[in-house]
């Protein structure tokens, strides 16, 4: 609204009131048209093109071009009760909600859309505002609405109209304002004689009465009106006149009040069809001229006169020097305080009768205002303001200030002054509204409305001047003390003011809109609240203002669900769940609960309560699920979070794993282990095979075998959530239409409960049942058994990769080629210890079981671990582990008998041929081939011995691959399969043994063997059980014998005294101790000593106190207790240990030679010479002494070891250079007797001497 329009609007509001007092009969005539008399006249109240000259107090007359009057029934000239008025206003807002719901107001608006909004966003506010102003009329502190004139209406049928006219104006019929003495009762009276053309009284008769009336009451103040002249019956097609009365009628309750006052009971019966049905065009002209004549000829002159006379009166009493002096000295005649004290006194500062000077002044000023003589009005308002201020009559003072502000606007006065006027009006009203101080409760709503009115005027004025930013402040101020609904409306208006200002303050707009939304919310105007919030979503969202977004979404979610749009509500609530991780747990729980509740309602929608037959229930459930899916696509559910990066696929193609730890071992290690057994793979496509590379790369899996996908679910909330029915969603490309997917794939469901902040890896399983291509597409779940969720896996290759690129590793690929069923082996190692001692030998059982139906053949084992040795035949499983190694514990097995293992073979890495492994070419045999006849039927088992010897202390990794092929022709791409087994064993230190040979003084053929033992384990006791000397490379066999007499070895400091041999060589080796054993070593003489077998000579060491050495007792018992050095497993392990030892030595030497400078290279024996030297290879057998009793044999000569339960035994390999190299030059004198010629002997021995000397 520009200023002229606003002025016009204000003029339309402030118009003189004309009161109507009809008789009951007169009203009945009008009611034939469904209208009261006042209503009948109302369309003609807006007078245009008048050009009437008006002359008030000024010198010059001015002309009124248009004028408007209000014609009201006397009964309705009073202020409505606050509650009634508020109810009316609330209804306007509610109706707006109903009307506008269909028009799409509550859509989320983009910022651009907001900025370019053309149409009025709040059309209902205009109506609300005028209703609001209307409700505040007829106040006692203003004179604008005091009736100026009175129309008395009497029908022509009345027997004595003159008397009736005179009686009509009685106290009973005047409005409350006059009755209470607030308004002037001396009104202008105008007498209307109403003639009903349809009555049986003729017009002539009526005119006669009229003449009589004129003569009595005066010609100027009487008028005759004839109406209802329509003759033709009702429903005539002719009258298609637009309804003139539409909005102008009184509300029903006002009309009812008026009619009941007249004694007319049922207005509904009197109402006949359309408004004004009985009125012809002529009647309308008559009515129009009635109003016009009355206004121009009667009312305006009357008002002019009134102003002039009142002005004169005021000039006499208030102007001039004398009067001014009077007021200067504070002379005031005492106030006529007739009203009750208390509230009224506070609010109004007393009661002013109409004839008090203040009221007269106010009436004068308001009349001048109505007559648009604003200058005159303003001067009187100023006068009046001072008076009221002196009286502390704040309400009246505020009213005057407000009127002054309006007058200043009308005269385009100083804007600043106008602002001050409205401001002080607002403050004064507020002071009245809050008797306990501004901003304190209780607030008198009736009074607060006036302050709101003043601010509304101010804001409208600012807006009319285009000062939108200034217009917001009054609205804001008014909103503080208003009822929530009006505050909401005001805040919304102020928000739009921000939007219209230049530059547009979008963010301010948003804030005020949200404030308005909150107020709407609190007064249950849900639709308006939703509208306010959705309008500003675009302003706030996706900017990162977390709390704001959360507030908006939660409020919207709630409100939208309250108005029944559950689907819409879910949209907002779900956004909340994804972005509330910064909030405390209680709030998150609230959000989650709200969301789940709405989802629950949604799924139960349309499901009638009570019992249902199953079919209907199923249908309802399906409908509910569909509704849920429509409201919230499962992909949009943010809880729990699925980490797509951490997907890991577990499946078996030609490879399978025996344990999870085997999976951890790298693929490189496995390919190394497998290399000897698997066929050489065909080279894959290279970059030159162009289009072949574009083919999709898939994993291969076997029908009937399980595929596992590890999916990480993460709960970002601080609330525990339950996730159930977690399953994989997949598609099978071979599936025909209509066939259920369950025929092709069997999917397992999981359930998990995620603690606050927990992320958990969940293995989801499925089992393809038929061949074809299987695609795993997504993971599905149900949150808290209400909300379904889904997360699609990334199907396309990562960015930048071409299709078919091998960039995706197999454990990330989710496409499978399913091949027909194949055999599958599962294996486990029975009796595998988790901890071993260094050098310990252990036997385990490898149990292979074919878990699938098809049979398999051609089993091979391959390993790269030197500590692992596969048994030769199942017979080795007999006996307890250490005992079975003893001499004689094993019977002979014919090599061709049941399933014995073939000779170890190794594959030539270059030719691919399988060649028998020569002990010298590889350190150990790595491949074991089962005999060709070995077939493992479906669901059969095979047990096979496996020997394990731990190496150096530390961690021993055993990697074993089982290779097998399906029996018979194999159509699929998988020709063979491998099972990968891996285990890790902790190896603890046990015993360190070093041997040293020294010459024996007494006997040249003998050597003294000094075995230095050291226990490395801090707590475990060991017992040395047996010492064996292996046959040397020159096929010489040394005989071991305990030292028969104490030798005179020098003791190194800290060493124990050498244990006496024989009796004391039984050796419990206490933890962390050192010990020394002494033996005689005699060369030669095959089979001379006990315990000598094919490969070694052994000596059983008895514990102390047994009184005998093993070597002397050649009985069977002692021999049986010996560990068989010819046992193939022991031989193999020793060979490996020796190879390891040699490799270590070579490495050491190499590193020594590298560090040593060439110039000072030792002049020691060269490499070849060293190799020449004979070496004595010794084997020490120890066992673990669990405690004293188990290890120590009784004096009765029982076997010490085999009785003790699961004894553990280790074998140590040590070697020492033979004495041949170490010995000093020595002479050997041999002869029949000492007396013989010695010289011959010397000569004879000379070459030997030379030979030996060279070895120095």
């Amino acid at each position, binding site marked *: 609204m520009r200023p002229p329009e606003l002025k016009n609007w204000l003029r339309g509001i402030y118009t003189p009131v004309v009161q109507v007092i009809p008789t009951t009969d007169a009203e009945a005539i009008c009611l034939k048209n469904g209208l009261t008399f006042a209503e009948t006249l109302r369309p003609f109240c807006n007078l245009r093109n008048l050009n009437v000259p008006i002359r008030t107090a000024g010198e010059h007359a001015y002309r009124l071009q248009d004028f408007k009057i209000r014609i009201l029934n006397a009964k309705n000239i009073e202020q409505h009760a606050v509650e009634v008025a508020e109810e009316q206003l609330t209804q306007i807002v509610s109706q707006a909600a109903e009307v506008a719901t269909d028009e799409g107001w509550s859509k989320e608006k983009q910022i651009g859309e907001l900025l370019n909004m053309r149409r009025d966003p709040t059309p209902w506010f205009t109506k609300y505002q005028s209703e609001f102003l209307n409700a505040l009329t007829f106040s006692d502190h203003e004179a604008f609405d005091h009736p100026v004139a009175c129309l008395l209406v009497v029908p022509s049928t009345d027997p004595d109209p003159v008397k009736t006219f005179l009686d009509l104006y009685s106290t009973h019929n005047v409005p409350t304002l006059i009755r209470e003495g607030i308004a002037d009762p001396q009104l202008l009276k105008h007498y209307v004689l109403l003639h009903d053309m349809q009555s049986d009284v003729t017009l002539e008769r009526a005119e006669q009465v009229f003449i009589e009336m004129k003569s009595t009451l005066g010609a100027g103040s009487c008028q005759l009106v004839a109406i209802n002249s329509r003759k033709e019956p009702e429903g005539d097609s002719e009258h298609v006149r637009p309804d003139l009365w539409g909005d102008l009628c009184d509300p029903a309750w006002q009309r009812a009040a008026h009619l009941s006052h007249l004694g007319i009971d049922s207005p509904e019966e009197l109402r006949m069809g359309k408004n004004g049905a009985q009125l012809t065009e002529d009647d309308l002209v008559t009515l129009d001229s009635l109003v016009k004549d009355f206004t121009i000829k009667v009312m305006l002159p009357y008002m002019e006169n009134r102003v002039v006379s009142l002005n004169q009166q005021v000039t006499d009493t208030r102007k001039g020097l004398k009067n001014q002096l009077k007021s200067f000295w504070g002379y005031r005649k005492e106030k006529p305080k007739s009203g009750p004290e208390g509230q009224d006194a506070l609010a109004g500062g007393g009661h002013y009768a109409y004839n008090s000077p203040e009221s007269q002044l106010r009436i004068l000023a308001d009349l001048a205002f109505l007559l648009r003589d604003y200058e005159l009005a303003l001067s009187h308002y100023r006068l009046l303001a001072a008076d009221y201020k002196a009286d502390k009559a704040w309400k009246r003072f505020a009213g005057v200030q407000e009127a002054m502000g309006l007058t200043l606007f009308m005269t385009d006065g100083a804007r600043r002054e106008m602002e001050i006027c409205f401001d002080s009006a607002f403050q004064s009203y507020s002071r009245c509204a809050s008797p306990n101080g501004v901003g304190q409760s209780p607030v008198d709503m009736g009074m607060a409305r006036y302050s709101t009115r003043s601010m509304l005027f101010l804001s409208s004025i600012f807006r009319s001047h285009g000062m939108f930013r200034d217009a917001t402040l009054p609205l804001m101020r008014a909103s503080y003390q208003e009822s929530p609904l009006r505050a909401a409306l005001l805040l919304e208006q102020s928000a739009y003011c*921000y939007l219209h200002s230049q*530059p547009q*303050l979008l*963010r301010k707009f948003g*804030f005020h809109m*949200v404030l308005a939304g909150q107020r709407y919310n609190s007064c249950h105007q849900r639709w308006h609240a939703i509208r306010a919030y959705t309008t500003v979503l675009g302003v*706030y969202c996706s*900017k*990162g203002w977390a709390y704001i977004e959360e*507030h908006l979404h939660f409020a919207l979610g709630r409100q939208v669900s309250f108005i029944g749009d559950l689907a819409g509500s879910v949209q907002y609530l779900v956004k909340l769940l994804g972005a509330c991780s910064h909030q405390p747990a209680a709030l998150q729980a609230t959000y989650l609960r709200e969301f789940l509740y709405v989802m629950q309602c949604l799924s139960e929608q349309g499901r009638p309560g009570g019992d249902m037959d199953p079919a209907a229930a199923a249908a309802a459930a399906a409908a509910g699920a569909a509704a849920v899916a429509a409201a919230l696509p499962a992909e949009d559910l943010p809880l729990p979070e699925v980490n797509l990066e951490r997907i890991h696929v577990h499946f078996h193609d030609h490879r399978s794993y025996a344990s999870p730890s085997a999976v951890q071992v790298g693929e490189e290690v496995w390919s190394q282990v497998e290399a000897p057994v698997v066929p050489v793979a065909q080279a894959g496509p290279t970059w030159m095979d162009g289009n072949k590379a574009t083919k999709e790369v898939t994993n291969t899996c076997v029908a009937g075998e399980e595929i596992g996908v590890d999916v990480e679910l993460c709960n970002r909330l601080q609330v525990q959530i339950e996730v159930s029915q977690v399953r994989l969603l997949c598609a099978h490309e071979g599936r025909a239409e209509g066939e259920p997917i369950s025929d092709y794939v069997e999917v397992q469901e999981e359930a998990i409960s995620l603690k606050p902040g927990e992320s958990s890896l969940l293995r989801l399983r499925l089992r393809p049942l038929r061949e074809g291509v299987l695609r795993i597409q997504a993971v599905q779940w149900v949150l808290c058994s209400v909300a379904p969720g889904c997360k699609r896996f990334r199907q396309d290759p990562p960015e930048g990769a071409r299709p078919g690129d091998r960039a995706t590793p197999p454990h990330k690929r989710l496409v499978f080629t399913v091949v027909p069923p194949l055999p599958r082996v599962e294996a486990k190692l029975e009796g595998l210890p988790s901890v071993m001692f260094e050098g310990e030998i252990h036997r385990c059982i490898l149990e292979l079981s074919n878990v699938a139906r098809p049979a398999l053949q051609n089993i091979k084992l391959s390993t790269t671990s030197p500590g692992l040795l596969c048994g030769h035949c199942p017979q080795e499983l007999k006996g307890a582990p250490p005992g079975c190694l003893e001499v004689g514990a094993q019977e002979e097995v014919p090599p061709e008998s049941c399933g014995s293992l073939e000779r170890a073979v190794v594959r030539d890495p270059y030719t691919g041929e399988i060649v028998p492994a020569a002990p010298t070419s590889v350190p150990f045999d790595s491949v074991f081939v089962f005999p060709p006849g070995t077939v493992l039927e479906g669901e059969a088992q095979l047990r096979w011995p496996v020997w394990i010897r731990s190496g150096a202390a530390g961690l021993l990794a055993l990697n074993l691959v089982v290779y097998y092929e399906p029996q018979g022709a194999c159509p699929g791409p998988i020709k063979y399969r491998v099972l990968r087994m891996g285990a890790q064993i902790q190896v603890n230190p046990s015993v360190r043994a070093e041997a040293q040979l020294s010459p024996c003084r007494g006997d040249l053929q003998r050597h003294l063997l000094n075995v230095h033992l050291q226990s490395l384990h801090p707590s475990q006791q060991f017992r040395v059980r047996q010492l064996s000397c292996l046959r040397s490379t020159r096929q010489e066999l040394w005989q071991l014998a305990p030292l028969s007499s104490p030798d005179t070895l020098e003791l190194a400091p800290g060493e124990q005294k050498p244990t006496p041999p024989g009796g004391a060589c039984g050796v419990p080796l206490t933890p962390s101790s050192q010990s020394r054993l002494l033996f005689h070593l005699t060369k030669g003489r095959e089979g001379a000593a006990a315990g000598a077998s094919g490969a070694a000579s052994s000596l059983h060491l008895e514990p102390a106190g047994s009184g005998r050495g093993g070597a002397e007792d050649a009985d069977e018992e002692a021999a049986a207790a010996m560990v068989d050095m010819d046992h193939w497993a022991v031989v193999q392990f020793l060979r490996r240990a020796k190879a390891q030892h040699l490799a270590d030595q070579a490495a050491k030497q190499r590193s020594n030679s590298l560090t040593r400078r060439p110039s000072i290279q030792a002049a020691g024996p060269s490499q070849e010479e060293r190799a020449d030297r004979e070496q004595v290879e010794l084997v020490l057998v120890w066992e673990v002494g669990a405690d004293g009793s188990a290890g120590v044999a009784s004096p009765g000569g029982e076997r010490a070891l085999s009785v003790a339960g699961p004894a553990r035994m280790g074998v140590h390999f040590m070697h020492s250079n033979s004495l041949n190299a170490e010995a000093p030059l020595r002479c050997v004198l041999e002869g029949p007797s000492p007396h013989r010629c010695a010289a011959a002997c010397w000569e004879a021995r000379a070459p030997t001497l030379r030979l030996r000397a060279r070895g120095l």
Partner: protein
Amino acid sequence: MTTYFAIVSREDSPIYEADLSVAGKKDKEETSHLHQFILHASLDIVDERMWDTNNMHIKVVDKFNELFVAAYVTAGRTRLLLLCDTRNEDGSKQFFQEVHELYLKVLLNPFQGVNTPIMTPSFDQRVRNLARKYL
């Protein structure tokens, strides 16, 4: 006493927020969104007022009920906003200047974008120390 501090990037996203109120007596979740609303709304005024002065510190720009918003605009149009229920021009000026220095140091980090939230704990700690010192 309410004190709420925020750094708003030039794209209007909050990149750092801290409730510097003395030992939270009020229930935080009740007011946090109100603080954000006020600060967000005040950006309109900040954008307008920053052209009126040569200083980076543009003092109190906005007011809502009893809460004042003081602002400081860096050369890169990053806005430092302080919501307070008391006017403390000198203190807030000092505070802003020191925080500005800290902010520049954070920006030197090549992994810190202009529009990405500042997650550095040491920055947070230092801002709180400054608040204790000046506000």
